[in-house]
């Protein structure tokens, strides 16, 4: 099955809506596709000890993160009937309400798309060495932990 490689996985700052639109359009050329499913991770204004998160600043162990993203993508393509997996993740500052993770999977059929997308997002959250520093309005911060 034809699969597409992504060129630039890490994006400086927030992921812009037009990048998402372009990815969706690109997949329209894959005429064996019957379903695309996407996940958008958005920075939430959590309130912690009375202080509200204003932004998350992402850093990563980049070489290992890229290896992990590739492993997750390969496993998803092996385990589910997918024709494409695209992953984009922000580095640097992403403000509340902006998008920090974009995953798109495509498949001939919806069920594989739902299941494959779920797998990819959960694996990213658990495995990939990306670290989010939650910044508050007063410039204090705390390190986020995925649950």
């Amino acid at each position: 099955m034809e699969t597409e490689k992504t060129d630039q996985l890490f994006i400086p700052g927030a992921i812009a809506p037009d990048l998402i639109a372009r990815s969706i359009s690109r997949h329209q050329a894959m005429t064996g596709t019957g379903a695309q499913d996407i996940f958008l991770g958005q920075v939430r204004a959590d309130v912690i000890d009375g202080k509200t998160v204003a932004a998350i600043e992402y850093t990563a162990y980049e070489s290992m993160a890229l290896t992990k993203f590739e492993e997750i993508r390969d496993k998803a393509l092996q385990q589910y009937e997918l024709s494409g997996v695209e992953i984009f993740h922000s580095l640097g500052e992403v403000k509340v309400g902006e998008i920090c993770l974009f995953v798109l999977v495509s498949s001939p059929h919806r069920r594989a798309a739902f299941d494959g997308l779920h797998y990819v997002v959960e694996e990213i959250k658990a495995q990939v060495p990306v670290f989010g520093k939650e910044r508050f309005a007063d410039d204090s911060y705390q390190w986020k932990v995925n649950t």
Partner: protein
Amino acid sequence: MTVLLFGITKDIVGSSTLSLPVSSTSRLRTVGELKDYLSSTYPRLRNLSSLAVAVNNSYAEDSDKIDNFDEIALIPPVSGG
């Protein structure tokens, strides 16, 4: 031996890399021994909900062997996405 630090481990140690002298590392043969050594030197590492070690870009087990040529990194709880 050089250890790369990320996220909160960088704050705890106060630097993005930690160079360990041969006098300390010659006795450290496994990932578990390295973790014990670092946790006793930087006790705040013990407060983390998890602390993994990556050897050459892969998560390692405590029993895995390490040497000076490996790329070693401390991985605190991840928070991507």
